[in-house]
């Protein structure tokens, strides 16, 4: 069986992407799933610190440059069933690695003997991040209940949409239409990505059908981290609604994680780390997010009101 790829991103730095990646990974591993975590953060690979590990010697660079098989790069962690691969700056540099090579990487990743592969994308929204996001089976955005975080999320989504539409058009021999239109956006009076997509759709009914089909099977999963009050929790519903109604994407609100005053204690605590002690509310919150992911469900109002 091929492994399922979940990518964790969302734009802004420091929202908790690495923490969420490692926690979801641990939770799945505790349930007996075979999990591989990949740190694809270009600038600040630090996923290993959440796994209480040193940065491994071998990285994806060796896969690209020396054709080292992934199986030699994967490291075991302290948690049974949980393994780890680190990327690094060189290996995932846009100029260094061609799209074809990246596709090859993802083919290999799918064939790792794991049930789940979780990719920590890091902050930002460069090509690699977007591409990794797009090849994943699930795209998870970790956001904070703050304006800058949402601003970053929208930017991220716009780039994802642009890239997705561009790639789709490319597949039908219509490369560069979207890019050219965007370059001439002033003359064409295209003000934003939404209008660009409208423009592209209006080229012909066939293109419209293609674009609509490709955007329809695109779901964005949202996690709101570091929430401190009920209003913060509701940010997730609002974000989901905007993504659905304005960006016309399918969006699901997986859940939230409260701000944990003893965050590092929680991460470093051998107990919560190894057994993912359910006495900790953070662990419970992660648990319900993982459950929603596995059952393809999401948070709803009655759960919030019943104080889940």
């Amino acid at each position, binding site marked *: 069986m091929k492994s399922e790829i979940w990518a964790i991103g969302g734009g802004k730095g420091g929202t908790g992407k690495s923490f969420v990646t490692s926690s979801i990974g641990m939770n799945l591993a505790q349930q007996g799933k075979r999990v591989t975590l990949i740190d694809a953060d270009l600038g600040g690979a630090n996923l290993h610190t959440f796994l209480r590990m040193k940065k491994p010697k071998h990285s994806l660079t060796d896969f690209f440059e020396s054709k080292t098989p992934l199986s030699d790069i994967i490291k075991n962690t302290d948690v049974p069933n949980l393994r780890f691969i680190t990327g690094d700056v060189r290996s995932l540099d846009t100029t260094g690695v061609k799209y074809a090579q990246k596709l090859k990487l993802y083919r290999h990743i799918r064939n790792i003997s794991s049930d789940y592969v979780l990719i920590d994308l890091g902050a930002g929204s460069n090509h690699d991040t977007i591409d990794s996001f797009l090849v994943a089976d699930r795209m998870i955005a970790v956001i904070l*209940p*703050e*304006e800058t975080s*949402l*601003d970053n999320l*929208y930017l991220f989504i716009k780039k994802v949409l642009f890239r997705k539409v561009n790639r789709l058009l490319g597949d*039908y*021999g*219509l490369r560069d*239409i979207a890019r050219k239109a965007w370059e001439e956006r002033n*003359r*064409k*009076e*295209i*003000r*934003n990505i*939404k*209008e660009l997509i*409208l*423009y592209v*759709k*209006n*080229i*012909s*009914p*066939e293109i419209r059908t293609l674009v609509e089909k490709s955007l329809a099977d695109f779901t964005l999963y949202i996690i709101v981290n570091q929430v401190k009050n009920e209003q913060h929790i*509701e*940010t997730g*519903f*609002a*974000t*989901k*609604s*905007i993504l*659905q*109604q*304005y960006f016309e994407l399918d969006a699901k*609100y997986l859940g939230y994680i409260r701000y944990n005053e003893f965050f590092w204690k929680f991460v470093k605590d051998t107990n919560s780390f190894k057994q993912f002690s359910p006495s900790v509310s953070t662990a419970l919150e992660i648990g319900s997010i993982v459950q929603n992911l596995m059952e393809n469900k999401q*948070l*709803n*109002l*009655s*759960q919030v009101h019943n104080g889940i």
Partner: protein
Amino acid sequence: MEFNTDTLKKYLDILDLDPDSHPTPDEIYRAYHKLETFYTSDSIVLDPLDDELDDNERILILQKLEDAFHFLNDHFKAESQEEELLGSPENVNIEIEDTLVEYVPETDWEERVSLEDHIPISIEQTNEIEPEKEIEPVITLSNEEESENHVEYITPPATIETPIEIKSIPEPPKENGTHSLENLPVNGLVFQMVREKKGLSINDLASQTGIAERDLIALEMEQFEKFQEAGDLRYFIVSLAKALSMDHLRAAEEYMKRYRQWKREHEY
């Protein structure tokens, strides 16, 4: 009754309701109201989109939310009616279902599940939508002109060699200074938005006009079934429009048109 699980789930999802639940009218209203408030207030989620999410865009979204509200409200009302008749849903027998439907008595179920008993009485709404904003262009998507001339579409080649000429987005009608809201055909949603723009709650309006809060809510939500007498409704609209400093003649004409349309559709 036409039933489509996907549609039902979609609307439940839009309002963040549990897809397997049977929400009460109260829950449906609250869920709707929460999002509706979100789109008409300042919010960290909306602010970053300030320069692209104009009033027209917001109204389109609000209309979609309202559709969801109405669909769910009607659906679960009909469902509880069915339950009332058949005891529990398990008793529904497909063979007899059709005949049973004919015997729907005019019981008090309508009142039992009516929103009136459940809606929180005072709805505080003090947020304003930006009044200064100029009207933004509406992007017209329709290909109608072309499709009238060419009845069939011929599949184009996979590659397009010649540059494609696209009609540019039409200029917005320049309506010097007036806010787009005032120029929209008057319906329940417009009443609601004008009220909110003025920072008035339902409660405020009720004391100002003497119209009961539940009637004001029914008016805004276009729960036409609550208005038996067209004359009463017209009177309400005129009073309401005056209280909101809207053109009351136009309001009455346009709103009543929607009411009559609804009546025609629900006559039989």
